């Protein structure tokens, strides 16, 4: 039998322990679903695809933020067969294992994490060379599905309430490298400052826990460099 401690309540609450039978190839999502369907229908949690594509099921399992549908009990349970399930950190808890994602996506918007086509419609197809350094940089970071695990793992998000966070900055980096985008300067301004890329201290917690193997640390480093190059070229150009 598995002993499963589950967070109940909001930001204040308590852990409730359930006993769940161990089954072959069981995932943590299977465990949570079994608790909610068989033992306590008042338990709140999120999931959707069940197959590691949507990121909805992200929560903290034995201290590590992960997708529960892709986390086998066999490799995550403690030696004594114990699981501790908590909602993602750095988010406001709505109820039990579900968190409020609004601030996460507000920061995405604040980082200008969206494509800007510009005022004039394009006259022809844009030519984007796949092997170009810019496209490769964008491709390396483009697969983010906004699950919030990096945001949960980041200490700077916990220490600095305004910090935009690894996901928003990572997305901004892909757009800075998109040659079709028309709002590069405004986006660089948006990701600069006390809440921007300069606040990152390269702990690399985001990169450690990203389930898609992305490296927001390097995206953010790219933003830092891009900002510096722009500052230098402005100072140089302004001095002439």
């Amino acid at each position, binding site marked *: 039998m598995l002993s499963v401690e589950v967070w109940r309540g909001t930001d204040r609450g308590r852990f409730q322990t359930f006993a769940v039978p161990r089954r072959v190839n069981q995932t943590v999502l299977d465990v949570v679903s079994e608790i909610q369907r068989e033992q306590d229908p008042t338990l709140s949690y999120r999931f959707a695809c069940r197959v590691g594509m949507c990121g909805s099921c992200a929560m903290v399992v*034995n*201290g*590590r*933020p992960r997708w529960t549908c892709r986390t086998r009990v066999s490799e995550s349970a403690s030696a004594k067969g114990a699981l*501790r399930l908590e909602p993602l*950190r750095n988010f406001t808890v709505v109820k039990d294992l579900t968190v409020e994602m609004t601030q996460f996506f507000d920061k995405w918007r604040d980082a200008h994490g969206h494509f800007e086509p510009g005022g004039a419609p394009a006259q022809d197809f844009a030519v984007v060379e796949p092997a170009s350094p810019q496209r490769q940089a964008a491709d390396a970071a483009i697969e983010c599905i906004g699950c919030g695990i990096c945001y949960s*793992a*980041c*200490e700077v998000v916990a220490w600095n309430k305004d910090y935009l966070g690894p996901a928003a900055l990572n997305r901004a980096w892909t757009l800075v490298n998109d040659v079709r985008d028309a709002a590069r300067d405004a986006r660089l301004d948006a990701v600069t400052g006390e809440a921007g890329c300069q606040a990152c*201290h*390269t*702990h*690399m*917690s985001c*990169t*450690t*826990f990203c389930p898609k193997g992305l*490296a927001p*640390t*390097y995206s953010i*480093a790219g933003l*830092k*460099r891009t900002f510096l190059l722009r500052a230098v070229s402005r100072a140089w150009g302004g001095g002439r």
Partner: protein
Amino acid sequence: MMRASHKEPGFLAALLHRLSGIALAIFLPFHFLALATALNGADALDTFLALTRTPAMKASECVLVAALAMHMTLGLRVLAIEFLPIRERTFATLSACAAAVFAVGLAFLLNVG
């Protein structure tokens, strides 16, 4: 329960970098004041230096020198992550930093009279 991210080497590096920085920032004014005793002549500085010849002081100096080496090597790591295109292998890098800090501390202990 400690956050899992706090057990990762990247966080440990950042924490050591920060703590060594704080220690150095506190130490520096005293370091400057000690050297400033030379304004009153070489003998004044020598009087101060005589205070530092106890084993406890030598050990403290070794820790400070190690803290300086630690802050620099970990700082160079941050600069490398931010400005160089190479992907870091965190554990290997930190082992190299730790080795450098150890070497500096040891060299100090071996050299100090």
